[in-house]
């Protein structure tokens, strides 16, 4: 009877948490209600964590002697882990958000893997099904932990090159198979099999070692441009691992939250892959850099330079301007200056819209956040499908720091590696200005046919410096523009 009340409270708190998570995520369907959505979910989390301390009244007799130490450890871990991550999350720059999210993803995966490890080492699981699910969840969690760590290192610039070795895919497959075989051995041992060479705990160590190794090997060859897909996948992986460990612990709140996140991650993964016109398998298992390059000389015309102030004045007297920002804008830390320029245009009664490609940035939607940080109101920001028809009627398309996502070769040139990728139709505007550091190819190394088209002019220079000149030019026109 002593355990009845704690169980009731824990059950009720977890039920509330699951409801609040779903309700909070539901409120994310609009920027107006989204801030309250995360707070609602936060309340659910606090309720679930506080209630879980009541587990101390339900522990097995074997764990009773250790209970005080365990509680102290729990409080310490919560304080250190939660405190450090909270502090880091409050400080992190918006441009560094992808690597931060990768870290949090890895932490969740690691926690799920840790739960699996405790269950395995302590032989807490009952029956073959539960053991198999524990192993599966542990495997996915561990892969997510080490894979996210590599993704972080790549995004943060710690690892600069994509390591590609011939036959790497076979090595990866071999490691995966070995991991599954070891999982089978652990399963067999629990069913009473003998003659397994090593003790079960040793096999468990090998199992997690191989799983971690697989996460590293799988992520190393993937290029920086494909990171939006990778982060989404690990988000889904961690969700799945949490859901599976929730089953092992018989905790429906973990099962529901994990599976919801798993589905969310899967959806975003597919959206990102679609936006690059590549399959998820293609991102994971092939090397983008080795794709055949478009032949030089296939493009007619030349790049025509134009002065920043001339371009600015043209935009000042235009009726409508669409801006296509890319990651280069953020790399030059020029979002604030861009919005300053946009405010001048808006004051001069120019209609200004931002057009965002789904893979602009290093994770889904990152460009939207960077613009929001600079103060750009969200009703000026439009996504690919909503704005692509507007380019035909736009006077000016201003491309800043974007390249491949406006390359018309994706529509027409079957030999181009990006053929078939949905692009922003910037080339269809009456006049196109491209702000670019200098002549040269984009992130993917593909020649951009847009730069050579008759209606396109190039503004060479650092985005920040160019925008300062543009702002001065428009201000110089006098009170009418200011």
């Amino acid at each position, binding site marked *: 009877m002593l355990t009845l009340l704690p169980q009731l409270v824990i059950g009720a708190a977890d039920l509330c948490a699951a409801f609040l998570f779903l309700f909070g995520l539901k409120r994310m369907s609009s920027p107006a209600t989204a801030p309250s959505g995360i707070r609602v979910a936060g309340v659910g989390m606090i309720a679930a964590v506080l209630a879980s301390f009541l587990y101390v009244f339900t522990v097995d007799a074997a764990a009773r002697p250790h209970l005080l130490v365990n509680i102290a450890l729990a409080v310490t871990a919560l304080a250190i882990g939660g405190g450090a991550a909270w502090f880091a999350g409050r400080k992190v720059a918006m441009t560094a958000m992808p690597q931060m999210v990768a870290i949090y993803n890895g932490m969740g995966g690691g926690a799920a893997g840790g739960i699996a490890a405790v269950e395995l080492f302590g032989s807490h699981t009952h029956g073959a099904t539960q053991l198999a699910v524990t192993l599966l969840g542990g495997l996915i969690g561990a892969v997510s932990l080490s894979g996210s760590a590599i993704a972080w290192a790549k995004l943060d610039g710690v690892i600069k090159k994509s390591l590609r070795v011939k036959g790497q895919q076979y090595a990866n497959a071999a490691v995966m198979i070995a991991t599954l075989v070891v999982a089978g051995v652990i399963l067999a041992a629990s069913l009473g099999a003998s003659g397994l060479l090593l003790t079960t705990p040793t096999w468990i160590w090998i199992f997690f070692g191989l799983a971690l190794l697989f996460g590293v090997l799988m992520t190393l060859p993937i290029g920086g441009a494909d990171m939006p897909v990778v982060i989404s996948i690990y*988000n889904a992986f961690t969700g799945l691992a949490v859901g599976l460990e929730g089953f092992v612990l018989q905790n429906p709140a973990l099962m529901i939250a994990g599976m919801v996140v798993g589905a969310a991650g899967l*959806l975003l993964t597919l959206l990102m892959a679609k936006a690059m016109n590549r399959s998820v398998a293609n991102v994971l298992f092939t090397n983008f850099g080795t794709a055949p390059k478009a032949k030089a000389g296939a493009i007619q015309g030349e790049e025509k330079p134009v002065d920043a102030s001339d371009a600015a004045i043209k935009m000042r007297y235009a009726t409508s301007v669409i801006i296509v920002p890319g990651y280069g804008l953020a790399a030059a830390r020029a979002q604030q200056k861009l919005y300053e320029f946009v405010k001048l245009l808006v004051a001069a009664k120019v209609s200004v819209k931002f057009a965002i490609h789904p893979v602009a940035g290093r994770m889904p939607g990152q460009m939207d956040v960077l613009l*929001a940080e600079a103060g750009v109101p969200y009703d000026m920001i439009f996504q690919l499908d909503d704005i692509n028809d507007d380019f035909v009627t736009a006077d000016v398309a201003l491309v800043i720091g974007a390249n491949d996502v406006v390359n018309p070769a994706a529509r027409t040139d079957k030999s181009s590696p990006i053929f078939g990728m949905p692009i922003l139709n910037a080339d269809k505007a009456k006049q196109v200005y491209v702000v670019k550091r200098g002549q040269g190819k984009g992130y993917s190394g593909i020649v951009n046919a847009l730069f050579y088209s008759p209606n396109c002019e190039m503004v060479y220079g650092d985005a920040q410096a160019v925008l300062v000149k543009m702002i001065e030019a428009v201000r110089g026109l006098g009170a009418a523009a200011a």
Partner: protein
Amino acid sequence: MNLEIAMTGFVALYVFMLAGFAGWVIIGNVPAILHTPLMSGSNFVHGIVVVGGLYALFNATTSLEQAIGFFAVLLGAGNAAGGYAVTDRMLAMFTTSDAKPNHRHGHAHARVHHLKKS
């Protein structure tokens, strides 16, 4: 009264199926402009794993289990707290344009203030 939750066999599969479906539908309705906060927000949601970590740690009997349980709680807590912090920060940045430019200026100020505070 029996409060034991029995999530076995098909019941578990039904829960997984319904939760996955709910996630797919709810997330499918989120506009692309919010995809980064959505990802960090769903990231926060899987931070619930900390609850499982606490359960495992409370039931630990050996030093090894205690050590792993400690790390599970540490990582899970980091996942939850960090995910919340960044999501909340990002969502506070999304503002709408107002008819009055002065008003918008006020918004910008509030935002800067918010960032400084953090």
